[in-house]
């Protein structure tokens, strides 16, 4: 319960259901912030898909974004490393604060943001024209970073992604020869090479079998020692297993998606303030 005590407002039961002024993960001064979303709104052309998302992502933690399909979780996670703007018709409102500055401030280089905020996608997507080793180091070439100790970096990234033992003897083989789970861990290793402060994972295990999923979850637990992880997942059990904090997204009756409730994962799952959260985490809809 020590951990719970350090979180100021969580033990207070919600007196009136949804009247918190800002839906956000509230943390004390003891836990520094890695990233903060302030009033993030997302549109595609005139279609408002996400409204006023306020979330704080504490450092060295795993935050899970859960919610039914179409509630805007994936759109939201793409706003955090400026991938959102690459989609046709994309519009944005609000701010995303990283290192005290809005990543959407005029003059900010999106490439620099993506180097600090890495991303792992739903489907494993290793580059087919490159070998395993080249794939891991591809970020260095793509971002034109010169390094002297390539082999050390290669081994470190693969080790941290839990793949080194399996591939160390075939680094020159095409990445297509790996299994789906290995490919996904290769993609994680590829992101780690750039040493990001934050790693975004958009349903990284949805295409994988339980064994591979477990390995990736173990990897995440080790990675959070050195970075902040934000993961979109449809798997409630996974959110419960890996995340420290959870935000529940919901889009109701054609309204834009919003954060219904956010907070410590254990709180949100076992003692939700909002009845909709209760229904969703217990599988009564979605």
């Amino acid at each position, binding site marked *: 319960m020590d951990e719970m005590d350090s979180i100021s407002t969580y033990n207070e039961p919600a007196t009136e259901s949804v009247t918190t002024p800002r839906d956000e993960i509230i943390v004390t001064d003891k836990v520094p912030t890695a990233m903060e979303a302030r009033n993030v709104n997302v549109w595609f052309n005139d279609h408002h898909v996400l409204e006023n998302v306020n979330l704080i992502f504490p450092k060295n933690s795993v935050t899970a974004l859960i919610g039914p399909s179409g509630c805007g979780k994936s759109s939201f996670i793409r706003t955090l490393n400026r*991938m959102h703007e690459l989609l046709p018709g994309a519009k944005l409102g609000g701010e995303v604060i990283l290192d005290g500055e809005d990543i959407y401030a005029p003059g900010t280089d999106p490439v620099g943001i993506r180097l600090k905020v890495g991303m792992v996608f739903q489907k494993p997507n290793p580059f*087919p024209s490159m070998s395993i080793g080249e794939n891991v180091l*591809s970020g260095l070439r793509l971002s034109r970073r010169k390094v002297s100790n390539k082999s050390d970096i290669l081994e470190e990234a693969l080790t941290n992604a839990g793949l080194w033992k399996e591939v160390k003897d075939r680094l020159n083989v095409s990445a297509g020869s790996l299994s789906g789970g290995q490919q996904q861990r290769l993609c994680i290793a590829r992101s780690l090479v750039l040493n990001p402060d934050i790693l975004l994972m958009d349903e990284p295990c949805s295409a994988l079998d339980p064994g591979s999923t477990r390995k990736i979850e173990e990897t995440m637990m080790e990675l959070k020692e050195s970075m902040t992880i934000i993961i979109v997942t449809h798997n409630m059990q996974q959110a419960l297993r890996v995340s420290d904090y959870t935000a529940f997204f919901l889009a109701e009756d054609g309204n834009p998606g919003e954060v219904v409730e956010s907070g410590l994962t254990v709180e949100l799952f076992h003692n939700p303030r909002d009845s909709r959260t209760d229904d969703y985490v217990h599988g009564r809809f979605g």
Partner: protein
Amino acid sequence: MSKVQRGTRPWRSIDSTVLLQQLFVHLGTPILAMFVTINSGISGYSGFLLVWFFLHLVTASLLGKLGKKKKAVSDSVFEVLSSAAVLVFILFVLSVLQPVFQLGLENFQVHHLFEDAKDTGVDTSLDIGGLGHALLGTLLTVGLATLFSLPIGVLAALYVTEVRGILTPFVRFFVQAMSGVPSIIAGLFAYAVFIASGILTYSGFVAAIALSILMLPTVARTAEEVLKLVPDDLRSAALALGGTQWRSVRMVVLPAARSGLVTAAILGVARVIGETAPLLLTAFGNREYNLNPLEGPIATLPTYIFQQFLLGTENDVRRAWVAAFVLLVLVSIVFSIARLISSRFKQA
């Protein structure tokens, strides 16, 4: 006691009466057709083929009726019609290939590939001279045309698939419109701009310009299709790893589409390698080797064939057949390479 099972194909088994009926129809109809042809005074092979075709429609329908299935009649008629279409198609191809291969091989001598025609006059024996100058000219002009149209075509395709700028629909429209440009117009354009204006003489360079106008739409459209096959996931991954758009395209998108792009180039080559009209206006033709594509008329296989046929003497017409044969072999080599590469691309 369980019996040891043996694998069979129950869906294929035909009972013996059906087999007999089919045998009777497929063997009997041509015999019947022959009989009808001879007795009715319709003459020749073509008459026989026509009678056979119509008779087969009738007998096949009857066969279908015998099976007592309503659908079977239309099925057998459809089968006969489509088989006939395939037969006609094969007949076309063979009748094009047959004389080229027969006359070409009959008259072909290996030295033809290396010698030029400067010592051959009208009706000179085929033991002297050859078409090496035309073969080299074709390789030079088509090679140059590829050099011009491949980068432009691929960049245009990249504009459509990667940059997706506001001009995208226009680029698509113009590429499509260009593929309808008659080749003689492309030749006239190059002639008017470079030769009639006095900037250049007849040359391989101007010919290559004319050919690249014809190649460009093929290359651009094929390249676009191939680039569209590259999954968007790879582009996202490259950008998420801090790549600029150009570096992502160069390091990830283009390598992923590499063999498809080679196919695009080869299809472009195949499009223009047999073009004659634009070359008559731009390369003109030559009796000897011209290694300089920037200056002076240059021979190519199509113009060589055209000019030898125009001469009309027995030996010159034979030379034309030899050149046609060489051109056909060249085209089939190019196409085989394209198919080989594109089949490897699909596996990857």
